[in-house]
């Protein structure tokens, strides 16, 4: 995630606190999604941006995870995101994101 976006998130958290804040990601590539998710959870992995060493531990979800899909009205989901279920590996994405959330709770 580029430094500008990290700065925006950090500012947002400084202003609003982390209470009730949730991050939802839409990258089709599992690795790309993973990097973004880990950055907002554990901090900037390259230790270069404003989130370097900042472990926000925000709950993070991917829009293509089955458990996310379940709570969105199906007509809206189908129109806005459903198509990417055919394109992306949703199982792998789900596994990656469950692991990141699990790790964030443990540590």
């Amino acid at each position, binding site marked *: 995630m580029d430094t500008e976006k990290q700065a925006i998130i950090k500012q947002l958290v400084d202003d609003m606190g982390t209470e009730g804040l949730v991050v939802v990601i839409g*990258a*089709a590539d599992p*690795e*790309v999604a993973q990097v973004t998710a880990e950055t907002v959870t554990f901090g900037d992995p390259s230790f*270069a941006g404003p989130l370097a060493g900042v472990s926000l531990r925000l709950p993070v979800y991917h829009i293509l995870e089955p458990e996310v899909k379940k709570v969105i009205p199906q007509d809206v989901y189908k129109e806005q995101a459903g198509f990417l279920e*055919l*394109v992306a590996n949703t199982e792998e994405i789900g596994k990656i994101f469950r692991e990141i959330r699990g790790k964030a709770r443990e540590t």
Partner: protein
Amino acid sequence: MYDPVIKACSHVLIHTPSFVRYGSKPSREIDDSTTPVLPAIETHLRSFEEAVEYPPNQVFIGNLHPDRLNGIEQPWYRHPVEDASRYGAYGEIMPEEEFLGLMKLADDFDLMWIEKESAPMIKKSLQAHPFWNNSDLGKIDAAVEMARIHDKIENQGSLPLYCHGRIVGCMHRHHEKDDALKAQVLMENLMAKASGALALTHLLKKSDIRADEIDLLLNCSEEAVGDRYNRGGGGLAKAIGEMCGCVSATGCDIKAFCVGPIYALVHAAGLVKSGLFNKVVVVGGGSMAKLGMKFKGHLAKGMPILEDVLGGLAFLVTGDDGESPSIRMDSIGKHDIGSGSSQQNIMESLVLKPLDRMGKKITDVDRYAVELQNPEVTVPAGSGNVPLTNYRMIGALAVLRREMNREGIDRFVLEHGMPGFSPTQGHIPAAVPFLGHAIDAIKRGEMNNAMFVARGSLFLGRMTQLSDGLSFLIEKNPGRKAPN
């Protein structure tokens, strides 16, 4: 009148390792980082030979078909093409010292000084180029002493120009308080002009059309030529045309982020079809800002910095000639404002709607060219494989249309797509680097048609959340005698 044709095309690369430091990302990192970044960049730059032998670069200039990349083990930079030539069917890969000379030829305002001791080397290398061996290179002779160059750099905001590790000149600002005319911006603009001119020169040499026959030039480079009152005011089309002797042409610049080349080609086709213009050139020079954009990922993986080349493209659109592939005027797919942000709606607008109009199925199109960024540049930097995702989306449309089942997507990608081979130069990867290969394959009868689909990120300019896209299809010329 029949549909217009794309009569000729050129694709060029310029190896500019010494300018990587001036790319947007590297220059910010060099300024901001607490650890020394520049030495790390310099030790990860490629030689000219390495850039020439790099398989995706050989695909770009037309010496290898994109499919050949499927058979070359990755990383491709470890598997150089044997006996690779810097010249190819569609253009060339130009070394830095020649390009510095070309930049000076493009300089009409004495923006760039060449240092006295380096001038003979720069002049000699450009003179060895078949296109410039009989040209007046006097501009390069007007070189200056190193002391004056140092003075300009230290006291007047000029930026040093390097080649093979030493200062060979400098680039000046042209107004003390105008950010649109500062040295870095002028350097970026001059490089776009010179690389666009290189592409156009190849185009003119390749086609049997004289420069003075061109009547319109559309520039689709990613730059913002202008001044403080009008950043991005334009004028690069005519600047490039002037440099190439297109004395009978007018021209203007077309801006649409990465979709620029497709918009320019669609405009060109429409203007030719309407009869307003007869021989229209679409030209795009390279983007200095994007050099080294993903360099951090490359350094982290111990790879060479692969974004060390500028790209350049030029296309000639004319009325039907009875042999070149036609741009089907009923094939334009557009991303309407009302298409919103649903990926499915966007892809249907770009791919399905035009196919329905033409009565074609998705699998009736032999090849799709999408955003063709080289994955070896983007994947190590955590940016994914952009062409692959886009091909999978077109495959997914075919699944929804029941043209195939979901298991068929991988095969669809292999047969109707191709691996990305273009440098990440914004507008350069925008589907059109496949045009040369497509035109030749269609002329040889190996393919009937190809669709070109490019996407743009308008939201990066912060004026809309919209993205953009545009597409068109070319197909085998029916070979009729033109009625007019």
